[in-house]
């Protein structure tokens, strides 16, 4: 269960950080709180899934790949929602960092989450 906890905490932290980068986009700066919250929630869910996967598949490459996939899919679900003001979709801007966050969470879970996965690279 330690791996699930590590993955969720890391997901929350990285998700919040990823959301905070929206501050650099003046057009959405007034929605920063919502963006950070939703980004964190997305990454916590990703962390939960990655952590559970890591418990059952204690192989670092597999966990990293799973993290990539989960990050990408969840980011895609978010990117499917159009911008409320412009109606545009930001697939690249949301999915690429989302997938990278998934990779980071997956790798860190396998590396630092304890148990056999920590040495199964």
């Amino acid at each position: 269960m330690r791996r699930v906890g590590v993955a969720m905490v890391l997901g929350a932290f990285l998700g919040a950080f990823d959301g905070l980068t929206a501050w650099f986009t003046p057009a959405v700066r007034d929605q920063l709180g919502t963006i950070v919250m939703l980004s964190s929630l997305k990454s916590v869910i990703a962390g939960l899934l990655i952590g559970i996967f890591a418990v059952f598949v204690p192989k670092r490459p597999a966990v990293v790949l799973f993290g990539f996939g989960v990050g990408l899919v969840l980011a895609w679900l978010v990117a499917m929602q159009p911008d409320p003001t412009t109606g545009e979709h930001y697939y690249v801007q949301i999915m690429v960092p989302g997938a990278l966050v998934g990779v980071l969470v997956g790798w860190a879970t396998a590396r630092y989450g304890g148990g056999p996965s920590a040495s199964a690279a």
Partner: protein
Amino acid sequence: MTTPRPVTPPESTRSSWLSDAAVERLREAAGTPDLTATRYRLIRRVGRGGMGSVYLADDTHLDRPVALKVLDLDDPRGLLAERLLREARILARLEHPGIVPVHEAGRLADGRVFYAMKYVEGERLDHRVARDPDLPSRLRLFRRVCEAVAFAHDRGILHRDLKPQNVMVGTFGEVWVMDWGVAKVLRDVDRPPDRGGAGTAAWGATDTDHGTVLGTRGYMAPEQERGDLSAVGPRSDVYSLGAMLRFLLGDDPPRPLLAICAKAMAAEPAERYAGALDLAREVSRHLDGLRVEAYPEGVLDKARRLYERHKVAVWLIAAYLVVRGALLAFLGR
């Protein structure tokens, strides 16, 4: 036995004389141990040590290869025989995966003393190192040597001749510390009292006299080289392990590892690691990317070590930041 004298025969009769090769074969045959009335069948000689030869033999009862160490030097006073048996007894009490197990010891039909041990297939550590440039794998092998030596110390036995040539490495990375012929029994820790467990007298009958130098120069601790027996202890083996580690490191090793060697090879025993396990732990700390106690690191050293330890994380975070920065710079969010 009389050996044919190498005199030159007259030209006419030379062909009927024995050739040098034949003489050598005769010598070999005369030196071959008589395994009559034993369970062993001789296969071939595989090595030669300080006291005797080592033969590969077949254990006909259990159908497995064994190594037989047989005394083959003149020993009128029986001291070498006693030393060989003592080596067998020492090995027999060291049941550890890193130490070759002894199966049997005794006297052959020809009167020579022998002992049978596991036949180790592998290569000497120095040979292994010559073809394996990977430092972490060398360090892992070294750690196993330390563990075997630490076990022997715990059983009250010093090796006193630790060097790469006395370590065998198996095909699967198994490690065996060999050649306990000059080992010293410090104390008798687990023999029952009725077999002399109260002291070391039974073991020390052929022990080294004060002033005698045993070991290998370059790997011997200073106190051992001086023949100062009272000062020889586990830390003397730690010195030899330090010298072995230095050999394994090769050219231009990382500074923390050099510091570990320097501490293990300190001139004063009190300044060395207290035991082989402490040395192994320091090597493990280096392997795990942790700070080694022997090396006072600066800020740059610490940064380098942390980077090495978390290299992938650093690169992943860097990749994320670069991508994020590029998206902000080129796509506006």
